[in-house]
C-alpha cells in the first residue's frame, strides 16, 4: 500500500470552502439559501462491506466480498468457494439468489426493469445458477460494469451498463466461445469501507489491542484487492475498538479530494462502556461533503431490540471525533446526527432479529418469501416507529438472512439453541438532501468462516463540489444583503432646522427657539445632545445655551419639539465681551447607533458693561457698544475717566430720582415685579449704547429699583472687584479713620475712584434717609465690593438665579461649618464697608 499517498491524504487540508458552515448565523443562513448557486453535485461510488467474522480474521480471501468475484489467479489455484449445491442440501434452504453476482445484478435490475426480469436473460440465469461460477462471465461482467468510469451521473446508467454486459455475457456463454484470457479486475468503487465485528473476541482486547490484528487485517484487505488494484488504493484510515475494526480505502482518483480525516469510537458493551459492543467510525470530506462511516456492533439476543435502539442513541450521543493528529474537531459540538450536512453510513452487526419463530423463518426462506419475512424485521420496525435510526434508508433486501449459520456451512443454526435466522448485518445511510442510489446490496454466501455471512453494498453517493468563484460571489451577495438590512435599520431622523439664527443677543435677555426632531427611520431612536468638548461640565458658569430636553426616545414617525434656551449670564458675557461680536456654537444631536446632526446656533453678541473690568470700562470712555474712535496719537496713560461712565450715569439717576425710595426697598431683594426684566433691559441698553436713561419710562419705584439693580450687577460681576481679593483682608482689619484711608490709598487709581464714588452715593443716601440706612447699604455693598466666593457646592449654575434674584448672600441651605465661615466673612465685609462709609463721613 502506498504510504506516502496515505500521508498526503491526511495532511491535505487545503479546501478553502469549509466556510459554508460555522460562521455568523446570518452568513450561514444566506449561504444555505444560495447553496445551489455555488455547488454542483458529483457522484462518488462507495463500496461498504460488513462482516461479523466470529472471532478470527477470516481465512478465506476477501476478493469475492469486495470485488463480487474471485480473482482469477486465486480461484484457479486456491480453494474453491463453498459449493452452492452443497449449501443447498446442507441447509435445506433455498440457496437464495445471494451468491452469484449476476443474480444480484438481475435482482437489482429486476426491481427497476421488468423487461429484464421477464426477458430472455432470465432463462440463461437458470443455466448459470446450476453450475459453478463462470469466471469468464463474471470477469467480463465486472470489467464492463465497473469500468464505469466514476463520473457516471446516476446509478441508472450504471445499471444499464451492467445489464448490457449481463446480456452480452449470457450470449457469450450460450455461444460457448472459448473463455477470454482473464482481464484485470476493475475497481469496485472509489471509496471502500470495511466494517468487521468480532475480529477478536478475547477479553484481553478490551484493554489492549494486539497491533498484529490490524496489520493482519490490512494485509488481508490488500490481498483481497489483488495485485492489480492494491496499487490504485490508499488507506484513508483504519480504527479498532476491541473486536470492531473499520477501514476506509480511497481510489487514487478521489484521494486528492479527501480531507479532514477524523475518527472516533464509542464502547457501550459491558458496564455500558466496554468495546464488546459499540461503534468505530471514520469520517472525512470528499470534495465538499462530509462522509461519516460508522461500523457498529449492537446488543445481541432476540429480545434485546430495545437495547439495540438505546445503543444506537448512546453511540450518537457519545461519538466524538479526533483528527488523525490528535486534535479535536469543531463539529464535535453537535451530536452526530445533528450534523445535517454529513452523509452518514451506518453498518455492522446491528443484531436486529425477526419477530418470528425458527421454523416459520426457515419455511419463509425456503419459499424465498423475503418481503414477507422482512415485515417481521425488528430494525425495520424501529426505523418506522422512530425508535432508532430515524431517517435512515436501506437498499431493498433481496438476499436471505445472514445469521445464524453453522460455521463452515450454509446451514442455518442446527444447534440446540436453534436461533431464528435474521438480517443482523445491515448497511444504512442518511442524508437530508443528497441522494444515495443503491447499485448493489447483497450477501456473500460462499464465506463459511463465521456464523454470519458478509454483506456488501455498492452505492452511488451524491457529493457537493463548491465552485470557488461562485462561492465568493454568493458570500458577497449575502454580505450586501445583510448590509442592506443593517443600513435600513440604522436609526434615522430629521431635524427641522440645522441653522438657528438668534439675531442680536444681549446679556440677561432670554431667547427661546425650538427645533423639531422627527423619527424618519424604521426603528425607535434614542437621541441625546453630545458635546464636542472632551470633558463637558454641566455647570459651566459661562454656558449660555440649554436644551430641553437634552435626550429622548422616539418611536418611528414620532416627533419631538426641542426647546433651545439662550440666556447669557454676566459671567458668560465676560467671555463673549472678550471674544468679539460673534456668538456661535454647534449643538451635536446624536442618534444612538446612528448619525449626528450639527445644529449651528449663531447670534450677534451685543457687548455689555456687565462683567467688564473697571479699567477697561474707564479706558473705553464711552458706551461699550460704541466703537471708541481711536484717539489719534493720544494713547494717553491716563484713562479717560477714573470712574466708569456707566456708574456715573446710574448714581446720577439715583441721586436725582430715587432718594425717596427707602434703601431697603431700593436695594433689597423683595421679589420680582412685572416689568422689571423689560426695565432692566432698558437700563442696560442705555448704558451700553451711551443713550441717556429714559427718565419717563423709569419713573417711579420700579424704575428706580431697575437702575439700582443694574448698579449692583455691575459691582457683582466686575472682572476684578472694586476692592481686589488681595486687598480685602487689609480693609477687614482696618479700623475706621486713618487706617481705612490708608487702605483706600493703597488701591489702584480706578478702583479707588470708583470706591469713593460709591461711598459718596451712600453718604448722600444716608444724609437723606437717616443713619439707619448705613446698615442696609453696608449689608448690600460690603460683600459686593469685597467679594467672597460661595462655599464649594453652592455655586449656582451659571449664576443665573442669583443674578436674576439678586440673591447675593442668603444661601438657603442649613448652616454647615463652611457656611458659617462664609457668613462670618460676609459680616466682616459688611462691617468694613460700614467703617468705610463712616470714615468718609467723618473726613
Amino acid at each position: 500500500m502506498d504510504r506516502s499517498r496515505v500521508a498526503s491524504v491526511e495532511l491535505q487540508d487545503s479546501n478553502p470552502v469549509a466556510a459554508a458552515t460555522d460562521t455568523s448565523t446570518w452568513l450561514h443562513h444566506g449561504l444555505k439559501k444560495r447553496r445551489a448557486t455555488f455547488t454542483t453535485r458529483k457522484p462518488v461510488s462507495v463500496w461498504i462491506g460488513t462482516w461479523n467474522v466470529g472471532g478470527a480474521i477470516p481465512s478465506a480471501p476477501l476478493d469475492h466480498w469486495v470485488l463480487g468475484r474471485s480473482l482469477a489467479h486465486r480461484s484457479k489455484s486456491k480453494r474453491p468457494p463453498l459449493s452452492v449445491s452443497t449449501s443447498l442440501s446442507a441447509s435445506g434452504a433455498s440457496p437464495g439468489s445471494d451468491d452469484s453476482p449476476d443474480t444480484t445484478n438481475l435482482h437489482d435490475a429486476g426491481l427497476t426493469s421488468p423487461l429484464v426480469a421477464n426477458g430472455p436473460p432470465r432463462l440463461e440465469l437458470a443455466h448459470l445458477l446450476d453450475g459453478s461460477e463462470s469466471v469468464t462471465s463474471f470477469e467480463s461482467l465486472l470489467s464492463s460494469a465497473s469500468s464505469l468510469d466514476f463520473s457516471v451521473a446516476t446509478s441508472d446508467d450504471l445499471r444499464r451498463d451492467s445489464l448490457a454486459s449481463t446480456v452480452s455475457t449470457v450470449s457469450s456463454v450460450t455461444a460457448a466461445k472459448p473463455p477470454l484470457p482473464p482481464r484485470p479486475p476493475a475497481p469496485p468503487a472509489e471509496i471502500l469501507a470495511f466494517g468487521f465485528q468480532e475480529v477478536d473476541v478475547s477479553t484481553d482486547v478490551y484493554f489492549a489491542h494486539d497491533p498484529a490484528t490490524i496489520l493482519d487485517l490490512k494485509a488481508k484487505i490488500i490481498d483481497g484487492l489483488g495485485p492489480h488494484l492494491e496499487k490504485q488504493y490508499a488507506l484513508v484510515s483504519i480504527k479498532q475498538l476491541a473486536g470492531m475494526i473499520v477501514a476506509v480505502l480511497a481510489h487514487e482518483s478521489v484521494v486528492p479530494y479527501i480531507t479532514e480525516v477524523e475518527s472516533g469510537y464509542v464502547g457501550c458493551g459491558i458496564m455500558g462502556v466496554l468495546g464488546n459492543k459499540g461503534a468505530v467510525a471514520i469520517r472525512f470530506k470528499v470534495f465538499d461533503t462530509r462522509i461519516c462511516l460508522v461500523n457498529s456492533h449492537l446488543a445481541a439476543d432476540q429480545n434485546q431490540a430495545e437495547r439495540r435502539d438505546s445503543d444506537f442513541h448512546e453511540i450518537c450521543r457519545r461519538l466524538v471525533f479526533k483528527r488523525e493528529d490528535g486534535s479535536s474537531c469543531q463539529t464535535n459540538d453537535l451530536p452526530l446526527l445533528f450534523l445535517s450536512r454529513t452523509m452518514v453510513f451506518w453498518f455492522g452487526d446491528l443484531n436486529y432479529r425477526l419477530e418470528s419463530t425458527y421454523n416459520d423463518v426457515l419455511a419463509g426462506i425456503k419459499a424465498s418469501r423475503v418481503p414477507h419475512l422482512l415485515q417481521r424485521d425488528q430494525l425495520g420496525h424501529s426505523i418506522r416507529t422512530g425508535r432508532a435510526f430515524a431517517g435512515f434508508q436501506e437498499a431493498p433486501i433481496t438476499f436471505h438472512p445472514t445469521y445464524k449459520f453453522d460455521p463452515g456451512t450454509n446451514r442455518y443454526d442446527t444447534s440446540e439453541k436453534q436461533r431464528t435466522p435474521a438480517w443482523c448485518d445491515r448497511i444504512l445511510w442518511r442524508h437530508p438532501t443528497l441522494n444515495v442510489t443503491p447499485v448493489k446490496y447483497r450477501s456473500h454466501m460462499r464465506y463459511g468462516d463465521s456464523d454470519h455471512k458478509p454483506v456488501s453494498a455498492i452505492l452511488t453517493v451524491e457529493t457537493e463540489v463548491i465552485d470557488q468563484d461562485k462561492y465568493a460571489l454568493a458570500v458577497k451577495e449575502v454580505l450586501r444583503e445583510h448590509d442592506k438590512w443593517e443600513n435600513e435599520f440604522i436609526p434615522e431622523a430629521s431635524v427641522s432646522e440645522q441653522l438657528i439664527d438668534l439675531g442680536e443677543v444681549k446679556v440677561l435677555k432670554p431667547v427661546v427657539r425650538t427645533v423639531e426632531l422627527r423619527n424618519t427611520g424604521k426603528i425607535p431612536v434614542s437621541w441625546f445632545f453630545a458635546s464636542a468638548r472632551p470633558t463637558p461640565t454641566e455647570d459651566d458658569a459661562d454656558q449660555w445655551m440649554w436644551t430641553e430636553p437634552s435626550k429622548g426616545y422616539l418611536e418611528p414617525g414620532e416627533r419631538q419639539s426641542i426647546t433651545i434656551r439662550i440666556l447669557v449670564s454676566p459671567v458668560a458675557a465676560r467671555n463673549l465681551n472678550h471674544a468679539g461680536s460673534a456668538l456661535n456654537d454647534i449643538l451635536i444631536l446624536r442618534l444612538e447607533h446612528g448619525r449626528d446632526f450639527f445644529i449651528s446656533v449663531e447670534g450677534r453678541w451685543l457687548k455689555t458693561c456687565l462683567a467688564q473690568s473697571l479699567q477697561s470700562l474707564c479706558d473705553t470712555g464711552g458706551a461699550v457698544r460704541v466703537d471708541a474712535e481711536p484717539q489719534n496719537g493720544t494713547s494717553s496713560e491716563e484713562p479717560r475717566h477714573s470712574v466708569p461712565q456707566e456708574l456715573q450715569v446710574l448714581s446720577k439717576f439715583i441721586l436725582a430720582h430715587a432718594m425717596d425710595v427707602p434703601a431697603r426697598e431700593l436695594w433689597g431683594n423683595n421679589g420680582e415685579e412685572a416689568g422689571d426684566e423689560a426695565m432692566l433691559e432698558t437700563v442696560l441698553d442705555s448704558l451700553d449704547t451711551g443713550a441717556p436713561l429714559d427718565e419717563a419710562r423709569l419713573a417711579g419705584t420700579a424704575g428706580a429699583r431697575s437702575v439700582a439693580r443694574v448698579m449692583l450687577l455691575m459691582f457683582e460681576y466686575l472682572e476684578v472687584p472694586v476692592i481686589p481679593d488681595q486687598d480685602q483682608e487689609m480693609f477687614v482689619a482696618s479700623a475706621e479713620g486713618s487706617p481705612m484711608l490708608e487702605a483706600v490709598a493703597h488701591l489702584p487709581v480706578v478702583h479707588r475712584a470708583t470706591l469713593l464714588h460709591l461711598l459718596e452715593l451712600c453718604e448722600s443716601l444716608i444724609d437723606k434717609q437717616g443713619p439707619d440706612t448705613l446698615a442696609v447699604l453696608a449689608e448690600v455693598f460690603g460683600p459686593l465690593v469685597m467679594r467672597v466666593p460661595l462655599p464649594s457646592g453652592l455655586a449656582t449654575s451659571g449664576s443665573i438665579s442669583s443674578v436674576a434674584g439678586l440673591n447675593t448672600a442668603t444661601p438657603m441651605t442649613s448652616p454647615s461649618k463652611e457656611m458659617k465661615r462664609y457668613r462670618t466673612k460676609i459680616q466682616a465685609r459688611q462691617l468694613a464697608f460700614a467703617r468705610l462709609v463712616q470714615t468718609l463721613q467723618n473726613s
Partner: protein
Amino acid sequence: MSAPQPPAAGTPVQVKLVLLGQAAVGKSSLVLRFVRNEFQENREPTIGAAFLTQKCKVDDKIVKFEIWDTAGQERFHSLAPMYYRNALAAIVVYDVTSAQSFDKAKSWVKELQLQGSPNVVIALAGNKIDIIKSEGEGAREVPADEAQAYANEAGLLFFETSAKDGTGVEAIFNDIAKKIPFEQILAKANAPRQGVNLHEAQPTPPQNCAC
C-alpha cells in the same frame, strides 16, 4: 464527559472609517455608491456626520466598515477629531477639477498623520473623474501623476474615483480592507473571537474528549 459548548457566532472585524475632505467633493456620494450602488445629483450638503455600515470579505475575514461621512464645511472643521479619533481608516477626498480641494486634502492628511490613530490607513481619492472622461483633460486641475507622487510620498493609497459612474469605488474600500493591520488590532483587542473565520479547518482549542 461534559458536553462541549457550541462556538459563539463569529463577529466581523469592525473597522471605523472616516471620510474627510472639502465640502462638495463627493464624500457622501462615494459612500452612497459603495453602500447602495446609487448616485444622486445635487445632494444636500451633509450637516453632521452620516453613519452607515458595509462589509467586505478579505481573505478569510469579514471586515465591517463603520463609515462616518463627515460634513465638509469649514465651520465644522473643529468637530472632525470626534470622527477621525480611533478611526482605523480614512478616505481623504478631493475633486480632480479643483486644485483648492487638493490642497485641503493635503492638510487633512497632515492633520490625520499628526492627530489620528497611529496606524490609520489613509486613502486619497480624486473624485469626479467622470468629468474628465466627458469633458476632457482640460477640466482637470489636479494631474493624476502629481497626486500619485504625493500619495507615494505620504504613504497613502491613491485612487481616482467617480461616485457617478462607480469607477474605483469598490477598489478603494477593498484595498483599504486589505491594508488594515488585523493582527495588531486583534492582538490589541485581546479578544480571540473577533472576526469571522471563514475556514472551519482552523485549529481550535482542545476540548474535552470522550475517553
